[in-house]
């Protein structure tokens, strides 16, 4: 079962803060500890920033997962931006086209349990991250 809890529109810097605070609140409600709350919120902050930097606007959808023994949080960060030409390259440390440190994508992967990246040139990008309650 997947239950959508909230959808946050991401268009500017302030929305990044709104999105990560919202995710943190839900993670806390679900019973995640302080460290996991920080990991999830930080991951969302990285992905929401990518939306603002590369696609200008998009959305962050926060959902609760309850699939048998697997309970947790799922966050989908989606935009209709230019897309990622080479996902493998984007997932490697130090690679950036946005003037950052190039650690957002590879770093985010280390903070969550599952991360899926879908992207198509000219259509957009959708990054899904999941963190399960242990």
């Amino acid at each position, binding site marked *: 079962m997947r239950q959508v809890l909230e959808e946050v529109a991401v268009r500017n*810097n*302030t929305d*990044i*803060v709104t999105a*990560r*605070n919202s995710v*943190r609140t839900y993670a806390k409600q679900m019973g995640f500890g*302080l*460290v996991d*709350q*920080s*990991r999830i*919120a*930080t991951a969302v*902050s*990285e992905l929401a*920033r990518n939306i603002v930097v590369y696609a200008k606007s998009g959305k962050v959808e926060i959902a609760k997962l309850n699939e048998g023994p697997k309970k947790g949080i799922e966050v989908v960060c989606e935009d209709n931006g230019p897309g990622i030409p080479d996902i493998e390259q984007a997932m490697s*440390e130090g690679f950036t086209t946005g003037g*950052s*440190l190039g*650690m*957002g994508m*590879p*770093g*985010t992967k*280390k*903070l969550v349990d599952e991360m899926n990246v879908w992207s198509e040139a000219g259509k957009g990008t959708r990054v899904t991250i999941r963190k399960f309650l242990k």
Partner: protein
Amino acid sequence: MERIPVLKISDFLIVTIQVALDDESALKLQEDILEEIAKTKAKGLLIDITAVDIVDSFMGRMIRDIARMARLMGPPTIVVGMQPAVAITLVELGLKMTGVSCALNLEKGLLMLKEMVEAKEREERTLEAEETEGYEASA
């Protein structure tokens, strides 16, 4: 936009971040701090992040850059009060805070900063003394 106060207490500038900073406010803070260093001739900078519960790669880089920029101008910087969850996340994220001095809390940070400033002043005095000696010898 959030505006973070930069306070001068004796020779030090103290910045306490108590709200979630968006990117723009963080950049503004960076500028404010460097301007205050020039204006007040502060000898040291202390950034208190006790209340900060999320540090992503942008914010981490910002803190690191402030420390590096302040160092270029002169004053050493100490970052104090990083929460355990923030420290864990930053290391897992892979952000290197090379060149940033940290302390557990405000009290320890102030002591450390005092020592750093004193060491710097001793070094400066030694350099000055050596220069004077050099002049005398050549005169």
